[in-house]
């Protein structure tokens, strides 16, 4: 996929692709500060406010870390949103206010995530169904099954489990620390393990990876399992935050498309094989900053949506416009 002439050229000196997410993040931060100062709303500039901005996009961040794995192997996962709803409902129904049931509920949610990821991966790798179609189909199946069973908030989450979303460790929200730990773990896997380098090779050029002796099918399946398990964790987080699970929380948050947008804004290439976790984290922060900028500037809700669409495209164009490759 990658143009050999381009990569060798960019290795010497400044590598734009590596720094682009940081540049975008810095730009977003500057705009935020400028708007907050110029409108005289300096109360938005405190550290606690910045942390609360991040706190609003924990679920998106967790999902996006998983999505990064899927996109890096040149796949994609559109089923995360409905999986988030399904695991949130499942967990909250199993717990049903009983602290003793927390562990079984977590295990059940993770198992559901693993199963969905396994199915996605197998359909994509073994049946060679286009990942977009496979996961879209999976999304419809999950959502259909879910809405057939529940139609409103179901079950409830015991106070102990709400600590996941509302607890604090040393002044920082526990969930933020959890996200950071997840990101570091994902970074370690991608950067320092054989599996991580396999992911990049499969995403970069599947045939070459297979000839090099990598079991490409297995890598794709594992990447999807990781993606779905992380979506399940995001579902658990949302159940804890909302104190109950409802069948629409995933689709309401548009976690499928937003997580893809976050990953792509973070510089991971949709065609696979290039990108990384820290880009995705930067993408998540950019996303939450954009929202806060609109809030501070007092932009009308509908105009906000119009600009959001334009910004997503513009941010991706920021990287893509320099590439010599053809896209479709």
């Amino acid at each position, binding site marked *: 996929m990658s143009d050999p002439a381009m990569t060798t050229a960019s290795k010497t000196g400044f590598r734009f692709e590596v720094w682009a997410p940081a540049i975008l993040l810095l730009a977003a931060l500057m705009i935020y500060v400028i708007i907050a100062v110029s409108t005289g709303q300096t109360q938005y500039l405190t550290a606690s406010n910045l942390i609360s901005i991040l706190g609003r996009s924990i679920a998106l961040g967790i999902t996006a870390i998983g999505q990064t794995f899927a996109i890096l192997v040149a796949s994609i996962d559109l089923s995360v949103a409905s999986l988030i709803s399904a695991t949130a409902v499942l967990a909250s129904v199993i717990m049903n206010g009983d602290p003793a049931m927390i562990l079984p509920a977590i295990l059940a949610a993770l198992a559901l995530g693993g199963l969905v990821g396994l199915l996605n991966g197998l*359909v994509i790798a073994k*049946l*060679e*169904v*286009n990942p*977009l*179609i*496979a996961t*879209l*189909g*999976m*999304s*419809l*199946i999950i*959502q*259909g*099954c*879910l*809405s*057939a069973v529940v139609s409103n908030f179901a079950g409830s989450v015991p106070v102990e489990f709400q600590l996941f979303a509302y607890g604090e460790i040393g002044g920082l929200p526990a969930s933020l620390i959890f996200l950071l730990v997840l990101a570091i773990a994902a970074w370690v896997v991608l950067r320092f393990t054989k599996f991580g380098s396999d992911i990049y090779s499969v995403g970069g050029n599947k045939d070459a990876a297979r000839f090099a002796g990598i079991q490409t099918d297995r890598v794709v399946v594992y990447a999807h399992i990781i993606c779905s398990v992380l979506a399940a964790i995001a579902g658990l987080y949302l159940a804890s935050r909302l104190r109950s699970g409802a069948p629409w929380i995933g689709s309401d948050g548009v976690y499928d*498309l937003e997580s*893809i*947008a976050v990953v*792509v804004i973070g510089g991971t290439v*949709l*065609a696979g094989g290039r990108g990384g976790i820290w880009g995705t984290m930067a993408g998540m922060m950019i996303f939450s900053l954009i929202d806060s900028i609109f809030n501070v500037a007092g932009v*009308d*809700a*509908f*105009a*906000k*949506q*119009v*600009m*959001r*669409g*334009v910004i*997503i*495209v513009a941010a*991706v*164009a920021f990287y*893509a*416009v*320099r*590439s010599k*490759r*053809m*896209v*479709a």
Partner: protein
Amino acid sequence: MTDQPLSSAEAPKKRALPHINPVYFLLAALIAAILLQNPNFAEPTGYMNFLKRAAPLAILAAGQVYVLVSGGFDLSVGSLITLVVVGSSMLTNNDPSATLWVIPVMLCIGLAVGLINGLVVCFLKVPSLIATLGMMITLTGVSFMWSGGSPRGYLPDTFRFFGRVNIMDIPVIRMLPVALIVLIVVGFALYWLMHRTNFGRMVHAIGDNPQAARLGGVPVNRVRILAFVVSSLSAVVTGILLGGFAGVSTDVGNGYELQAITAAVLGGAQLLGGRGSVPAAIAGALSLQAIFTLLNFLGLPQPVRQVVQGLILIIAVALAMYRRKRTGR
């Protein structure tokens, strides 16, 4: 894909069954099943109403095929449909004579949306998935802004003519919905453009191998932009038809982009380009509508529809891949 000339050289030997697109068998089987469930379907009112309901999706799928074959996706069509319905209701403002200029305005909006999609993909090098996703979010926002969040009023009857009216007292078939006439005209035009002109061949070429197409002298960017324009224009037509029988709301177009892709894929269109057919996509749309009708007759609720649509999507593509591997095409 790459050994196209090889397989076409072998083609004359066995021209029998394998060359008929399986979607037609699927459609026939589904219609047979509907007839078994409900013999009234054989009456003109039965099948004409079915075709009328299926017409918008069929037109949309036929347009989506252009973008799919060129190697991209167009996710913005659903929100464009919404914009057309909401915008038309705002512009006509209950004035029946306004229809005459509102429809051209809507077509111009479609043209502009398609152009922007195409330009962003070609010159800003944004993958079409993201480019049209951004367009989808933007257009949804525009619909909300335009209508102030709660669209009111209704479309005048002159506007609803295309989607709603049946021409009665026709011999043999008794009634003929205007929507069906629109489907036949638009469908034939899109078929001709895709399968009988150089443009259609170039769309296939850039979807199959853009580098080779460029070296072969195809104006890749121009063809790709035009493919997006065709898709957007078909979405406008779909919106005009849907405005006829659905009410005015900000969610009329929801989910249509995915249904259109499903229909095109059922018709054998290959994602990421190079293969697809307009008539088969229309048949795919009819099949999808037939499945929904069948589920309705069986009294199955909405969630089951979703599950069935998901299963069909995966199975259709898996079978197509299996066939392609086995026949080596």
